[in-house]
């Protein structure tokens, strides 16, 4: 479903992604963790080409992203993306946030799009908030609307970039619950997060990044209980005590 082959990226002289090789299979849930600045956000932003890379090959759902001829809007329609800061459209209601892309990209009829959007909002437990604007919603509710928006195009892949990092602690659970449900339903997911509970519960694989390199990859139990590198062990002890 997603295949990185020797992908490298530089920001000026900074080597933010260093020879990344990674294969994500359909239905797989991959958690990506690592210290800040390790390149994990950049890595998942490459998957829907919010970031370009300079070297290597990347295939997503059969489409070659290293090829500039690839139709980006078609690619992105197959991928849902959830941001740390939600980035809901503030001038639209929750419902309109969800229907925007289907009506304009898929040319879905208004009534059909709204029915679909209500179903997605129900999935994230927000049926009653369809007509609310983002400013009237709590952080946790906003992020759940953002997930519903990400699901609106019936994507094959969902990407999450630190989806709970901007939330107050009491709201993290409601967002993670939605993500767990998605994972158990078989969605292919790449999640940048430090939520170890989530990783242990649903991740098939945990990837550890440091300094632009992918340095560990294994099952959650393996990774958290027996990290192979000192760097990962250090990192785990830090997020455990935190």
């Amino acid at each position, binding site marked *: 479903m997603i295949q990185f082959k020797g992908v490298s990226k530089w920001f000026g002289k900074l080597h933010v992604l260093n020879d990344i090789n990674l294969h994500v299979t359909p239905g797989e849930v991959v958690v990506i963790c690592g210290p800040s600045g390790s390149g994990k956000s950049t890595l998942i932003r490459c998957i829907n080409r*919010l970031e370009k890379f300079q070297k290597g090959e990347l295939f997503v759902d059969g489409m070659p992203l290293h090829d500039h001829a690839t139709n980006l809007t078609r690619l*992105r329609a197959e*991928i849902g993306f959830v941001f740390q800061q939600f*980035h809901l459209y503030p*001038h639209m209601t929750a419902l309109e946030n969800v229907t925007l892309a289907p009506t304009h*990209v898929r040319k879905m009829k208004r009534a059909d799009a709204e029915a679909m959007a209500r179903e997605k909002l129900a999935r994230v437990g927000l049926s009653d908030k369809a007509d609310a604007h983002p400013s009237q919603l709590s952080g946790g509710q906003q992020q759940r609307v953002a997930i519903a928006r*990400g699901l*609106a195009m019936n994507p094959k892949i969902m990407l999450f970039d630190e989806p709970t990092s901007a939330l107050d602690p009491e709201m993290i659970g409601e967002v993670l619950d939605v993500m767990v449900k998605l994972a158990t339903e078989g969605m292919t997911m790449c999640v940048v997060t430090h939520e170890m509970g989530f990783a242990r519960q649903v991740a098939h694989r945990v990837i550890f990044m440091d300094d632009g390199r992918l340095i560990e990859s294994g099952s959650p139990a393996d990774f958290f209980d027996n990290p192979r590198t000192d760097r990962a062990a250090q990192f785990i002890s830090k997020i455990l005590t935190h």
Partner: protein
Amino acid sequence: MMLFYFQRLVEILPFFFKGLWMTVVVSGISLALGTILGFLLGIIRASGNRFIKPVIGVYVALIRGTPFVVQIFIVFFILPDWGIQLAAFPAAILALTILGTAFICEIVAGGIKSVHSGQWEAAASSGLNRYQQLRYVILPQSLQTILPPLVGQYVLLIKDSSVVSVIGVVELTRVGWLTVVRIPEGLMVFSLVGILYFAISYPLIRLSNNMEKRLATQQVML
């Protein structure tokens, strides 16, 4: 004597209204054109092609950095040397449009840049193309920032339209000049001119202020 002149002035009042109408027509047409072009250039300047952007930058800097009276002389007296001969009216429209476009372009570009880059990314991620991102996500949000200064700019441009009197367009200021030759009461004549400008500017100033207040309360709510 003053009373006599005042009566004369009242007699030729229709002449002033004609001048006022010409001011409204000249500024109205150039503001409409300037708004369309200003939005187009502003959008390109804020989000578009990196080869065109610097060209627009140079244009805006030149227009902002030179007096309007010089610009209108160039359009009216220097273009004919290159074979482009314009009557006073189209020359005035052209010069005012060039001026308005430059300022409006800056306001629009500023408004678009004030929208968080995450909004572009969210819209792009959901599969919208560049035009759709702008049309449905970015512009509606930037309009809140753009409108108050845009209307404020309209007021400035309406006042700048007085400069086109120098090439002989008989608008409000020109009417003042022509009148003061026959009614040598400068204060009286140009007070009237001022009052008439104020009558079109003031509603726009109020509108701009109200929009700014509304924007401020909206931002508090967010």
